[in-house]
């Protein structure tokens, strides 16, 4: 078993200045890193013998709807050996939606990154098969963005004729 403090100290010794920010809320640890470093960080938390976060339990996007750092991706990781979870967070601007993929670290990121691309339009560079997951392939919008209307764009999804 490991606690948040031990994990954070270990991360700080291994990563140093890469950790931009860290906070704890209701016993859950979150670490913010620059998006260029996300593959390095993920490789380290997975392969470090003390940390051993061998399981990516979820990966999802979010939209803050702010002028800068509008979008982001959250990586929820779990160490089966240490029975400990924490969260890695990255931010990205609206102008530059490219984020490196972590499918090379955890294969499980494949579907989750496709879903994030489908819902937010965040492009995961190096992903083996970045297609839409839920929406039709010719759909032009990203439904979970804040500027997407709740009821959708009329006529964007075809219905069979009556």
């Amino acid at each position, binding site marked *: 078993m490991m606690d948040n403090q031990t994990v954070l100290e270990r991360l700080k010794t291994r990563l140093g200045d890469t950790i931009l920010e860290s906070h704890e809320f209701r016993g859950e640890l979150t670490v913010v890193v620059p998006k260029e470093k996300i593959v390095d960080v993920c490789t380290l938390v997975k392969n470090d013998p003390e940390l051993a976060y061998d399981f990516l339990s979820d990966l999802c996007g979010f939209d803050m709807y702010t002028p800068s750092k509008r979008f982001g991706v959250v990586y929820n990781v779990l160490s089966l050996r240490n029975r400990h979870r924490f969260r890695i967070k990255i931010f990205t601007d609206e102008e530059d939606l490219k984020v490196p993929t972590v499918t090379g670290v955890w294969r499980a990121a494949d579907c989750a990154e496709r879903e994030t691309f489908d819902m937010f339009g965040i492009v995961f560079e190096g992903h083996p098969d970045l297609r839409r997951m839920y929406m*039709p392939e010719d759909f032009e919008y990203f439904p979970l963005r804040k500027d997407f209307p*709740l*009821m*959708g764009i009329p006529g964007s*999804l075809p*219905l069979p004729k*009556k």
Partner: protein
Amino acid sequence: MGLDRALGDSFLTTKIEDAINWCRKNSLWPMPMGISCCAIEMMAFAGPRFDASRFGSEVLRFSPRQSDVMLVAGTTTYKMAKVVRKIYDQMPDPKWVIAMGACTSSGGMYRTYSVVQGIDQFLPVDVYVAGCPPRPDNLLNALMVLQQKVQRGESRGSAIVRVGEFHPAQPEPVSN
């Protein structure tokens, strides 16, 4: 046949159309389009407690080619709409549709981009059933109302009948 004993040497007269409609209304085989949670109540409707076989509808056909009425039970998304329509198109005429529950009739609580706000946007609906989900006896009521429509020879969305509780602002349900 028992009818011989009851009638003796006398006979009955009817129109062939009425006789056929009487046969049809007492053997409405449903196509169970159980898309989500309403399907659980639809199973109870077919099961022994509520027993749809009292009305000749116990044979839930999983092939559209052998069914007469489509029970659309559940939230219909835009993706599923094509499937529902394709199965409806495969059913032989005459055919009827029961829209079961709030989601199917109007989108229900799913007021969102991915859910069709009522299957009548792409299907001719004969009977709407209120409820989230409707109780099986309410679905039985819908079946009985549909039987009356069948007896009158109505089909393909003509003379729409509503059953169940409705808000006062909405039109009153048609009395049986």
